[in-house]
């Protein structure tokens, strides 16, 4: 995977024009490997009408079959023997079904190169120790959701003096303990060591709103950050605007909007998207994003909403080349953000599907007994 290695070591993580040819070469290289090593993937390519040895230039990437995350939830695809997978992760399991992915040493090294470049670019790397507040699960051997892994992993971007978890393992189950977190935040505000929160936006919001209702207004030490990942989907129905969260961060913790950073990624597409100062997810060199028509699945022009298809040559152990998420989104054209990063940016509009409760037929199906045909 020499092209992929070169891509993931690229100095400027937002140099899309400079990497277009390299990106396509890395995709072609990876696709050829996947077709040789994973029979199911070869079959999927055949269904999509992609002949073996087809030329894949920068303009042909849409021809690689986009595999829905639903497919990964039902099938485990492997291009390497299990014993070469150093890390296994599972998605957080929307609807109770999880995708199980595994990464080999080469893929992980590319991931690490990417994480360091991105963290450096977004000012997340620091030698100054800090207190971490993780609004997620305390890691346990049995918990393999990607969040508990990345949540823990993030705490190495700056040395950790302490780690406080919101979901604590107690009496055989996870308990949400925001009270303890609040107490330690109050204590941290009196010190000089910066803090970093990491977690789902919804939990971050709950924590901050609760503190504001109790009239708590703190000023965290300089260099403190609020970082969020895992999407806004838990917010659906609550109609909370991001601006409200930024207001709370300033009011409750004294942390400014520019110090609120959001991440986006998926186990099936382990690319680290980080928001710019204007809170937009620009596409880094490690991936390309196609938006596809909701009926035909054909690519649509920039600015048109549709299904989000994420492409990357990062992973060798599995065919994660082109992954179609359950999200609807828009790719905004280059030059429309104004933050200084020139490239296009992705806006997630929400999940596919019917809004809750409008369909009774769908509800009935969830409980069908699954009779033998």
């Amino acid at each position: 995977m020499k092209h992929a290695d070169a891509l993931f070591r690229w100095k400027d993580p937002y140099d899309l024009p400079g990497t277009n040819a390299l990106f396509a070469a890395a995709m072609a290289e990876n696709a050829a490997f996947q077709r040789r090593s994973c029979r199911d993937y070869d079959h999927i390519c055949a269904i999509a009408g992609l002949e073996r040895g087809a030329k894949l230039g920068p303009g042909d990437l849409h021809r690689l079959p986009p595999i829905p995350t639903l497919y990964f939830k039902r099938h485990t695809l492997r291009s390497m023997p299990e014993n070469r997978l150093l890390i296994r992760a599972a998605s957080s399991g929307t609807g109770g079904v999880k995708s199980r992915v595994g990464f080999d040493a080469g893929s992980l090294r590319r991931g690490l190169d990417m994480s360091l470049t991105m963290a450096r670019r977004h000012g997340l790397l620091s030698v100054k120790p800090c207190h971490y507040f993780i609004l997620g699960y305390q890691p346990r051997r049995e918990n393999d959701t990607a969040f508990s892994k990345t949540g823990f992993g993030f705490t190495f971007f700056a040395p950790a003096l302490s780690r406080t978890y919101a979901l604590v393992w107690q009496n055989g189950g996870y308990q949400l303990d925001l009270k303890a977190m609040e107490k330690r935040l109050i204590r941290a505000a009196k010190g000089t060591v910066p803090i970093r929160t990491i977690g789902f936006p919804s939990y971050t919001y709950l924590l901050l709103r609760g503190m504001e209702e109790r009239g708590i207004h703190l000023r965290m030490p300089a260099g403190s950050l609020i970082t969020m990942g895992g999407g806004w989907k838990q917010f659906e129905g609550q109609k909370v605007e991001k601006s409200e969260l930024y207001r709370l961060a300033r009011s409750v913790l004294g942390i400014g909007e520019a110090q609120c950073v959001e991440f986006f990624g998926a186990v099936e597409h382990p690319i680290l998207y980080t928001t710019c100062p204007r809170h937009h997810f620009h596409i880094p060199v490690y991936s390309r994003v196609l938006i596809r028509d909701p009926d035909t699945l054909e690519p649509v022009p920039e600015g048109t909403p549709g299904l989000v298809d994420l492409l990357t040559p990062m992973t060798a152990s599995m065919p994660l080349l082109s992954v179609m998420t359950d999200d609807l989104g828009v790719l905004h054209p280059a030059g429309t953000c104004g933050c200084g990063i020139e490239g296009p940016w992705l806006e997630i509009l929400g999940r596919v599907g019917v809004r809750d409760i409008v369909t009774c037929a769908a509800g009935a199906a969830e409980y069908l007994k699954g009779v033998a045909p």
Partner: protein
Amino acid sequence: MILFQGQLYEDRELPRLRGELEARCLETIASRTIAPEQVISACGVLAERVRRGDYDQVLRPFLADFHISPGQFEAALRLLEPGSLRRKLALELGPGPEDTPLPCPGRAPIQRRRFPLGVLLHIAAGNVDGLPAYSVVEGLLAGNINILKLPSMDRGASLLLLRELAAIEPALKDFVYVFDVPSSDLASLTEFARIAGGVVVWGGDEAVRAARTLAGPDTRVIPWGHKLSFAYVSGEASDGDLAALAKHICETRQLLCSSCQGIFLDTEDMGAVEAFGERFFQILQAENARHAPADMGLRAKASLQLWTEALEAVETGRRVLRGGGAGVTIAPDSRLELSALAGNCWVKPLPRRRIVHVLSPEKGRLQTAGLLCPPEERPALSALLARAGVVRVTWAGDMSRTLPGEAHDGLYPLQLYSRIVEFG
């Protein structure tokens, strides 16, 4: 907002009003009753005003949110008209038990009269079958005091209609309470259920299970759960009948309990299933082009599901035909399943000798079967489908018809909302 004895209150008044609720209900039961005619004439006035467009400002966004078409709404409105309500009352509750006294040796015959359950708690869902205000009207017809918990997406339509109803007939004020509490407010819901003699719950298994937990063991739980419907085709179906079925699929977007999810064919020959699937796909595609596209999220979900199925075809033996947003999945199994919705159905073999074996295990989920078959076979096939658990057999194009006087999922709601008292 809260509707409490005809008055609107802010949600922050909830603790106070909740505290007063039981005393108010008991006082009403002790001192007043309502006659069905009072309810019926008030509904008549209300239906007239709705039709005139008086409430369009609130109702139109509500209908859009719940994907309720003008035709469906018109049908729902007809249910509120006096003629419809009188017919419903006569069908479901008449002849009254007072007409059939029970002989008692050595004494005067025992007299019987129908009484309301007392207080009904309605936990409403947002779909058209469960139009929350209509659920309350049914409770009122049986003479009950009604506490309505609104569905989370109801932005005021039910509240408006019920407030108007109480304004038209002030006697109803003491019989209608509406609370906009979330399902997570267990304290309020438990209190409402404690006061109630019956809990009417609309929604999926989770909602029904939650209602059973809320209600004490001595409280009647009346679940209107989620259902699935399908079409059954035996013999040659005409293009006209299949076009009507396709129209029904596109109109309802397959979102209703009565919407056709797929078509079972009375055959074991997969060749016949394939041929039928291809033929119906052409008809469905043409029909779908005549309808406004479904919600983008719904279409995208269907596309994802069907693309996944296409990738899995080698294991499942399924074939997915897709085009113009419509789709037909030809499948070799006979499992009843939800379709991908939004104009995408399945076609499967189900020979008649296996109807009961395949469908009976799902009897609690079955609702409508749209039947297309030669006229001479209709009685036998209808009876077979009914024995398997289906509660409504219709022409394939009529699967989602709403007619005044129809039973609901095989039952008469007004009977469930009342009780018989014997005197003697």
